[in-house]
């Protein structure tokens, strides 16, 4: 082993211990044009857990995620990754530590799916982990069920396929921290479950995963912990049984719901209170 190789290895991030705080965002305040988007919101994600961020439109979920990733400038508060304040990270080190999937997965030029997924390996160039490139790309393509699309050009894909290509790129990055902003938005039923199952597996393997979700049932079924935001504040943070309660959901979303426990899996199921289904019979 050459000295150069050892030097390269030293630059690689150390793996996080299970239960160690991967992301600590404290008292985040974000104001845009004088409007408060986040009001002293805090978020902690530990290695080995899947945390879902939920809340109505405009509650500040994506902004909180953007504040954690550094895309959004903070008016107040602090963000640390793996115990180190975010401003002390270089962009390259950060890219080896955490991967981010944004809502917008557009690509401005007609790259193929495979080329886009390979881009996820860019942070590992000139490190020993470069040797994993091909395996990481292939795994990511298989995990997101787009292996058959690898030669297709991204602009020619459907919205859901493009979203999966974006996810594959983020998975191929193979970082210990995953931040996903509405990864299920464009997906059909099966691929929604696939994505959350994948996120779940990554968490079980020791990664820290934070996912912005709209579907409360997906959050209830897969998340270790749910953070509920409302008007820029964290109003609840805990296991699904504590957060997904009729009172809390109705207060935040303004929609009455019933909470059921699935008879076999025991998962929490949220059902909006709806009028009786239309049966075709006229009302008397």
């Amino acid at each position, binding site marked *: 082993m050459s000295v150069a190789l050892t030097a390269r290895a030293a630059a690689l991030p150390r793996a996080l211990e299970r239960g160690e705080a991967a992301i600590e965002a404290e008292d985040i305040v974000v104001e845009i044009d004088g409007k408060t988007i986040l009001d002293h919101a805090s978020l902690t994600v530990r290695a080995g857990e899947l945390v879902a961020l939920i809340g109505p439109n405009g509650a500040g979920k994506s902004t909180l995620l953007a504040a954690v990733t*550094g895309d959004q400038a903070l008016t107040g508060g602090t963000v640390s990754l793996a115990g180190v304040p975010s401003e002390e990270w270089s962009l390259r080190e950060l890219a080896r530590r955490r991967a981010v999937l944004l809502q917008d997965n557009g690509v401005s030029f007609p790259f193929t799916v495979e080329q886009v997924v390979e881009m996820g390996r860019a942070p590992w160039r000139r490190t020993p982990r470069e040797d994993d490139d091909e395996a990481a790309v292939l795994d990511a393509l298989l995990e997101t069920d787009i292996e058959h699309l690898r030669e297709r050009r991204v602009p020619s894909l459907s919205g859901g396929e493009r979203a999966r290509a974006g996810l594959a790129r983020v998975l191929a990055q193979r970082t210990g921290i995953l931040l996903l902003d509405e990864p299920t938005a464009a997906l059909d039923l099966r691929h929604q479950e696939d994505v959350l199952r994948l996120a779940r597996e990554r968490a079980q393997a020791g990664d820290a995963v934070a996912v912005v979700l709209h579907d409360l049932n997906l959050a209830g079924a897969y998340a270790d912990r749910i953070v509920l935001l409302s008007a820029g504040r964290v109003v609840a943070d805990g296991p699904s049984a504590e957060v997904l309660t009729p009172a809390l959901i109705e207060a935040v979303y303004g929609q009455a719901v019933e909470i059921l426990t699935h008879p076999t899996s025991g998962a929490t199921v949220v059902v909006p209170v709806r009028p009786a289904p239309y049966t075709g019979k006229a009302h008397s």
Partner: protein
Amino acid sequence: MTATATRTALDGAVPTAPRSMAARRVLLTVGLATALVVLVLVSAGTGQLYVSPLEVVGAIGHAVGLDIAPMPSHPNGYNALWTIRFPRVAMAVVIGAALAASGLLMQAIFGNPLAEPGVVGVSSGAALGASATIVFGWTFLGEWTIAATAFAAGLSATLLVYLMSRANGKTEIVTLVLTGIAVNAFTGAGLAFLTFLGDQQAREQIVFWQLGSLNGSRWQQFWIVLPLVAVGLIVATSMSRRLDLLSLGERSARHLGVNVELLRIVAIVVTALLVGAAVAFAGIIAFVGLVIPHLLRMIIGPSHLPLMVTSILGGAVLLLGADLVARTAVPMADLPIGMLTSIVGGPFFFWLLRRTRRRAGGWG
């Protein structure tokens, strides 16, 4: 050991398509390089005084002390080649390469295949700087003055277009094209004013700038343009990988470790450098930066490293060919080359605009 084994196993699983893409890139690069060499020899020999390609090789060989091919049979052949033809051919090669690379670079940072120095007004901005130098007789940097003012004015124009056409980290096509119209209108007024101010000789030169021509290229000019373009092309090529990542969007590129702000500034400066160097002595030659990268992208895909290399070659071939036509299409006349590239480039731009619109479902 295990890594090697895995890699071999995976190699088998990879379908043959990427390999054919790699083959396509090699074929295209070799083809363009060959075309460039042939065209250099043919173009240098063609004109009122004909010299065969073999004799052109002989003339080049003689100058560097090699006796590889016969010297030009015409008594004035050797001198005509070295004082008139070669500087012009060399300028065409360097300027064509600079224009194509600057177009590709602009498209990458704007994230938009329609960005091009001529279309968005960077070229005319640079021409404004060059014309002012002529009219006011500036010489503060000696013979480099024109190149410097063309670069400075081109840089201002690029920054202006960039700042005006970006909104929320994106460049909409309509905004880009309208910004181009605004910048071109402004520089057009500036050029008109300078034409009005200048004397007879300055006027002629400004008109020449607006038409674009390689007529009267001299070695002295070439040695100014070459280092500027060489630096620009080296930096542009070294950015290729990061430009690939930039097509995922600025935020995603940053999350993959790219310093987007730095990349953007360097790309803008390099664009201005390339355009300034090209415009300084040849005037406005539009659409090379639009047509070449676009055609090559259709053949070998959007990956920036092979695209940059082939665009440099392709731009040189295109401008060399266009200059040959400009010199020989009408007997005893030297057509403005900028006019030729626009005759082809204008309709091409329009076609591209229609196609992009159809795909985007409107003028968004």
